[in-house]
């Protein structure tokens, strides 16, 4: 786990200020999506080796939800962006 997370709003901050929610690569299905799409969204998670995007909440900081792209093997953090800006960067 990374020791420092470079929050786009607050700068590099210790990881203890953050809360990890999990996979940010999943998209909430449309309300009328099929049951299997919802099932996958709610329950199915990949456990990748290597690059992984996750939702991190800067709970003890700016309280923004962030997307942290990090390496699950080396723990290197490649990018940290605001979750609300996901559409612009993805």
């Amino acid at each position, binding site marked *: *786990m*990374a*020791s*420092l997370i470079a929050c786009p709003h607050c700068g*590099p901050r*210790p990881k203890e200020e953050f*809360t990890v*929610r999990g996979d*940010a690569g999943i998209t*909430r*299905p449309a*309300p009328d*999506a099929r*049951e299997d799409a*919802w099932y996958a*969204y*709610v*329950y199915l998670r990949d456990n990748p080796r290597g690059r992984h995007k996750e*939702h991190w*909440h800067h*709970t003890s900081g700016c*309280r*923004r*939800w962030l997307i942290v792209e990090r390496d699950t093997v*080396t*723990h*290197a*953090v490649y990018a940290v962006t*605001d*979750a*609300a*800006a*996901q*559409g612009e960067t993805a």
Partner: protein
Amino acid sequence: MSSFRLSKGGRLDRTKPLDFTFDGKPMQGLAGDTLASALLANGRQLVGRSFKYHRPRGILTAGAAEPNALVTIGEGGRTEANTRATLVELYSGLTARSQNRWPSVDFDLGAVNSLLSPFLGAGFYYKTFMWPAAFWEKVYEPIIRKAAGLGRATYEPDPDSYEKCWAHCDLLVIGAGPAGLAAALTAGRAGARVILADEGFEPGGSLLSETAVVGDKSAGDLLAQTLAELTSLPNVRIFSRTTVFGWYDGNVFGAVESVQKNTATVDPNRPVERIWRIAAKHAILASGAEERPLVFGGNDIPGVMMAGAMRSYLNRQAIAPGKETVIFTNDESGYRTAADLEAAGLEVAAIVDARASGASSWSGRAPVFPGAMVQDAKGGKALTSVTILKGGAPVTINADALAMSGGWSPIIHLACHRGARPVWSDAKAAFLAPETLDGLTIAGSAAGVGSLEACLADGAGKATSALQALGLSNTSAAFAPATDTTIVSKPLWYVRGAKGKAFVDYQNDVHLKDLGLAVSEGYGHVELAKRYTTNGMATDQGKLSNINAIGILAEARKVSPADVGTTTFRPFYTPLSFGALTGASKGKHFQPVRKSPLHDWAKKNGAVFVETGLWYRSSWFPKAGETTWRESVDREVLNVRKNAGICDVSTLGKIEIFGKDAAEFLNRIYCNAFLKLPVGKARYGLMLREDGMIYDDGTTSRLDESHFFMTTTTAYAAGVMNHLEFCAQALWPDLDVQFASSTDQWAQIAVAGPKSRMILQTLVDEDISDAAFPFLGAKEVSLCGGTLTGRLFRISFSGELAYELAVPAGYGEAIADAIMEAGKPHGICPYGVEALGVMRIEKGHVTHSEINGTVIPSDLGFAKMVSATKPDFIGKAMLAREGMVADDRLSLVGVKPLDPATTFKTGSHILSDGATPSLENDQGYVSSSCYSPNLGSTIGLALVKHGPKRHGEHVTVWNDLKNEYTKAVLCSPVFFDPENGKLHG
């Protein structure tokens, strides 16, 4: 003869004697001593007993790798076991005790284990104590634990304080030996922010005990000048007594600084230890090298010491190891020790050089035996002689000290903390860290560099490169390049034919034969051998032993050490105290306490408090003469239902929600409709998780078109806030909605009971009659003749005519006092969460006892609240799943005993009348229960299969813990005032 102090020499202050005790015996050392050197000065070489065989053990090293000289320091709550005497800075009043001996270190009954040693080889525990299995826990393990082991921890609390802090720098230099000093000086002169950390109480590393001359300066002068310049630089911080123990992600290093471990009179206003987290742009690891022991018979007898350690004690603390010293070396460094001993006027009886070629140059008096081995050392509690093998017949030489050097291993632990594997170098005959590591450079003898000049040059050169990479181009190396002329010898992993025990791992009593046994029994893999023999375990983690064990395994397996590899290096480099790791988080600082703004009001009204999470909530308010909590709670309940009561509900989560899309947002968050909630109205809301289960409930009021006020349960306040933020930011960033937690900003007071309106009307300036302010009204109100503005909600958890009044936190106590005063003629009483709980169960209102993560709205009778028309809300899609619509889901029902004289407990299971307890017969369970003073009986809420269809059915309530069976009947969950007449009163 034993070790003693020379009359001159050393980096000591001979005018400052320091008194200390060892095993109760008063001794004296000098300022500049470690505990180890002071013990040696007092002729105390035997300082402990070994882990398994209880063999007498002496001081082996002068540093962090010490496996033998582990002592218990301090008394009472300051007792610290397994402390390495080699790293303890001597102070006046220090008390030290030896370990793992009884009755004394000189006469230890546990030494009988040595006689049993043929039966105590590697894997002995696994093989011997197999049968009977039940004996392991009760008989074998306690006996083994008692006989083997290290120091004992104290049960008394630690009276001292600790702290944690952060530090930031451009360059962290780990180790203040030659390479580290050269790196720090180079970086300091270039203007970089430098932290130089060293575990010793005096920076300098090997320079502190070096007699060589560098250029035209003595090592001591070089050290003094370098430190003087470093100290003068404002951008350089020198952390002495600071061990960097770990390298972590983001180039953050963990270090522990000993602040007051060197005094018997601790200043209570300062910590004794401090944990640093150092965020470094780059770091230079200049941790030096560890000398390898040689594996021969009796290599653990007190008097046998590492050659470098013996030299350090001699030059730094003026310790003579004995009268006649034998040097056993496979390396040039043994000769340096011999030369310094002779220069101090001590006799070196022989230099036994395992290398056939012997020394490159030796001009001393001592005879050299090239191509020879020390096969066995002899002696009991002290060395008396050594047997030397050189071709032909063994020769015995009298000796009371023996210095050994098997060559050097770079200390690369930190470089491998983030997953890098050490690489075997045939040229250096050692494991080295990988050459390139992001954020860390290895310099000096930690990088396999040998000579002093080359280490200085290497440290300076690597600092230059590191700084250039950081953009500090105006850098010049503080020391000129130098060629490393060190000759690396072929390793000698062990001496063949030893008669005595030849120890590989001193701390765990692993000897040569144990490793052979591990290989022959199929445990030759380095990780398996470690577990099978315990080599490399315990407090030193094999700092001395691992390399020889790897060499021995390699020979036994007929492969290269490269093929054996190393075990994994993990933080911490050296043991850390629990106190340091705990930092300030102990006692009342272990976790914060949250007190309601009405805490003092509750306290002065006699509240008994209960901890709920971090909060202290008022539980009940006993009156004089009441002897049980039930008496108080029953009275409070009856009084609220008859007159009125006042209750602190400030701990509920409170969230202000703003934005033009706030209504739309809430409509998606709650399963029921919020879009058209009128301004001035409150509504009960059910929040689901995406899987359809209920997450939390509470009331949300619309104070304005674009301003809502949400309340959550106390327990889920933080979680709901995070959830709202996630939904707003990650799911629907296009919605205009913002949140602010205002839990701590409002004091919120529930006033309930038939007389509540009368009482509140005396404080509220506006008309709050039923017509003007009906059920579920919510608005800002003027209080006390316009002196204060608050928020009033007509909501009820008790089922009574009730209000919740929120005022700014600072006014809470005054308003509560005013309500009590106004209510006095009407018989108002304060009530706590217990009475609140009774009243909500009487009314069938649910809490997280029912909303336990397994229930969906229809399970609790809220099916009609779930909007069928909203296109989307959190949890909607998953509510349609097969299992969610099954008709035998556990659903809310009331339950009460048939005989009011009987009772049942929350958590009991419901069985059909007469059914025997079994998983198949389980019908559900009691989720909440209490004694209802209004019904004169225990009542409960339960989650039961087909619950709502079974009102009137007789059941058995079964409590397996107490083996109790209670005859009961299922009923409506609303036990009291089912028509809600009181609520609307």
